[in-house]
């Protein structure tokens, strides 16, 4: 049993006499056998409000009528919510049940609120009432019919409070709708009837037009009002596939916990409410069909769903998306193939075909930690400054790795080199990059570069996968170029390039991180605060690039444009975490950073 409306309402006036009907409730059946019984109940929070005794509800017909004639002090005695000076709201609760009972509270039963607006006036006479108000109430709500339920009457179209107002008028109702619809009006009872079982998956709502014809002594009037009947959904559609139930999943480079693979879709013509969260309507549950503990520890399947209309013939339905999820990292050496089945169960679908089986054909390929026969050859200038970046080293496919960690080590190739020869090798350092699995070579000490005997450094580069200890080696040669020119750099240059605010001093000085031993000037051309601001950088390949990399973060002064967290004066935008992502004119940094117009004359403390 259910009420086809979420609430009922009607107005009553002073003088409304005992026995006169107010409104009629309807209850829709779930099965033909049910016999609804209607009772007034009161929400258990209060003992019944004193006005409840003014009404009586016919157990069988659901007609609410007056139990007493309302008088003026009935109105003044009320201490209920009032919506205006001359109107108070009496809130009743009605419930419907299968059999008669005497319990008073509405707990647990199917109940519906009734708002009776008690107006502090006598009822308008026939002449004082517009015919339209005889036909239709001022405001009414849309009814709803649950699909797959027996037909029956679900609304009284007549306004029972007005039925005796104009005795010599004849009021009749009929309905119309653009498309044939399973509704009619019972001419005897003026009840709106649904004439057959509805299927929401076929039609979600019916737009009817209620027509009220009033025959007075001499004239015939006709009034129209639209009525939308919503069809409520129940889980009467099984899950189904539209295409494949199998997905080929290859796990190679991305072996990281949380990685998702595959995209199997399961369709369901029913709606799946996302509110309230713990709702059980059309609830899908899934189960991994495997006893392999190895698989169970490492894999799960994630279900996400979306409400869609277009593909269900403009009727709301649900598409579930299933993805295989890694619960842990997979070792680089792991090599395995298996089929993983996943049983999807529409738990609230009564029929037999409530389940669908999905199949993930999983192939895990091992990952080789390997340098394809490459000998790294880098050349650096003798003028290189400390922290100058030499280059990046990376095992094959390392940029694709996720969930695999590789460490890199340098060792002089010649085992028994002389002490002074070995000291040359201290010039080069290696640091793991944050973002990915590569490593960056950089100038660690500049002193060896200044020594003629340090010419060519032969390293063995060792790469090792942390967990599996898989290891690989390759040769790495660093050629030290340029002879030791006369130091042409200004000797009172600051330690780092970012301090300069003009091209001249910038390019005539060196600074931390400068591979050529000279700072590089970037001339911006942006107008206002722009990403392309002018600045002096040790190495335009990496600074500024909006990313404070592993070498730059060793000393903020190497590239404050990417790494600063200090105040920035002048028009600027900060980077996501640090640095200057955009600046006005020229950006330069001393204790703090400034972004100023390029053409400003050197400021002086004027007297």
């Amino acid at each position: 049993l259910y009420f086809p409306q979420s609430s009922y309402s009607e107005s009553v006036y002073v003088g409304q006499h005992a026995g006169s009907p107010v409104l009629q409730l309807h209850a829709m059946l779930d099965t033909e056998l049910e016999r609804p019984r209607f009772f007034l109940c009161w929400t258990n929070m209060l003992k019944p409000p004193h006005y409840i005794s003014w009404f009586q509800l016919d157990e069988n017909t659901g007609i609410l009528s007056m139990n007493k004639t309302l008088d003026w002090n009935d109105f003044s005695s009320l201490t209920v919510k009032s919506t205006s000076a001359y109107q108070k709201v009496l809130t009743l609760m009605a419930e419907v049940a299968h059999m008669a009972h005497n319990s008073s509270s509405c707990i647990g039963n199917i109940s519906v609120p009734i708002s009776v607006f008690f107006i502090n006036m006598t009822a308008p006479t026939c002449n004082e009432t517009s015919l339209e108000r005889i036909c239709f109430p001022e405001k009414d709500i849309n009814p709803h019919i649950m699909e797959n339920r027996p037909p029956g009457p679900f609304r009284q179209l007549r306004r029972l409070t007005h039925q005796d107002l104009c005795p010599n008028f004849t009021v009749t109702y009929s309905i119309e709708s653009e498309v044939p619809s399973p509704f009619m009006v019972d001419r005897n009872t003026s009840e709106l009837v649904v004439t057959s079982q509805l299927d929401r998956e076929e039609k979600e709502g019916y737009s009817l037009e209620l027509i009220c014809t009033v025959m007075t002594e001499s004239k015939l009037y006709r009034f129209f009002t639209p009525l939308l009947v919503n069809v409520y959904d129940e889980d009467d559609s099984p899950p189904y596939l539209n295409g494949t139930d199998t997905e080929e999943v290859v796990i190679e480079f991305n072996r990281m916990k949380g990685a998702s693979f595959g995209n199997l879709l399961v369709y369901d013509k029913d709606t799946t409410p996302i509110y309230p969260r713990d709702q059980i309507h059309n609830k899908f549950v899934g189960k991994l069909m495997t006893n392999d503990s190895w698989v169970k520890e490492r894999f799960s399947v994630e279900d996400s769903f979306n409400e869609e209309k277009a593909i269900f013939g403009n009727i709301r339905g649900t598409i579930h998306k299933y993805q295989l999820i890694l619960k842990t990292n997979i070792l680089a050496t792991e090599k395995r193939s298996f089929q993983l089945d996943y049983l999807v169960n529409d738990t609230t679908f009564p029929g037999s075909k409530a389940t669908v089986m999905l199949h993930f054909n999983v192939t895990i390929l091992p990952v080789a930690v390997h340098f394809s026969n490459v000998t790294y050859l880098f050349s650096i200038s003798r003028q290189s400054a400390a922290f100058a970046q030499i280059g990046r080293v990376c095992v094959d496919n390392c940029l694709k790795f996720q969930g695999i960690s590789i460490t890199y080590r340098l060792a002089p190739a010649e085992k028994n080199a002389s002490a002074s020869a070995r000291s040359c090798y201290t010039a080069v350092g290696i640091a793991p990059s944050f973002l990915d699995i590569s490593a960056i070579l950089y100038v660690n000490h500049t002193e060896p570069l200044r020594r003629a005997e340090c010419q060519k450094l032969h390293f063995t580069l060792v790469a090792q996968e942390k967990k599996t200890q898989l290891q690989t080696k390759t040769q790495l040669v660093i050629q030290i170029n340029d002879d030791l020119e006369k130091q042409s750099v200004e000797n009172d240059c600051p330690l780092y390039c970012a301090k300069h605010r003009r091209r001249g001093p910038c390019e005539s000085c060196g600074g931390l991180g400068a591979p050529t031993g000279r700072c590089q000037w970037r001339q911006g051309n942006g107008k206002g605060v722009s990403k392309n601001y002018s600045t002096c950088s040790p190495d335009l390949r990496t600074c500024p690039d909006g990313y404070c990399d592993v070498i730059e973060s060793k000393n903020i002064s190497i590239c404050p444009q990417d790494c600063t967290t200090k105040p920035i004066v002048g028009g600027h935008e900060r980077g996501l975490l640090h640095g200057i992502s955009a600046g006005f004119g020229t950006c330069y940094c001393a204790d703090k950073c400034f972004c100023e117009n390029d053409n400003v004359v050197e400021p002086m403390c004027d007297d």
Partner: protein
Amino acid sequence: ARKGRSSCTLREAVVSVSELGLGYESDETLLFRYCSGRCVAHRRNYDVSLEHMKRAGLLGGSRQDKMRHSPCCRPTTYDDDISFLDNKNRYYTIHEVSAREC
């Protein structure tokens, strides 16, 4: 004090954000407060001694080394930050742009 050379006080002008010259483009206006005027009245023994020793060339150092022997008319505290929407509908906040006390 010579005509027009009033003492160091707080002044204000309504200017647009663009007119600040910081590079932001916005038609919003703000009250820009700044310090202007002379502050001879606030000198200390330090100022008197420094001026005397500078004149007497007792402190060495080149002509370039700026040694101020009198207090400057400068803000001692700054107004709250100023936020605005620029002409591309992006919000910015500027710190320490307007003086509060001199």
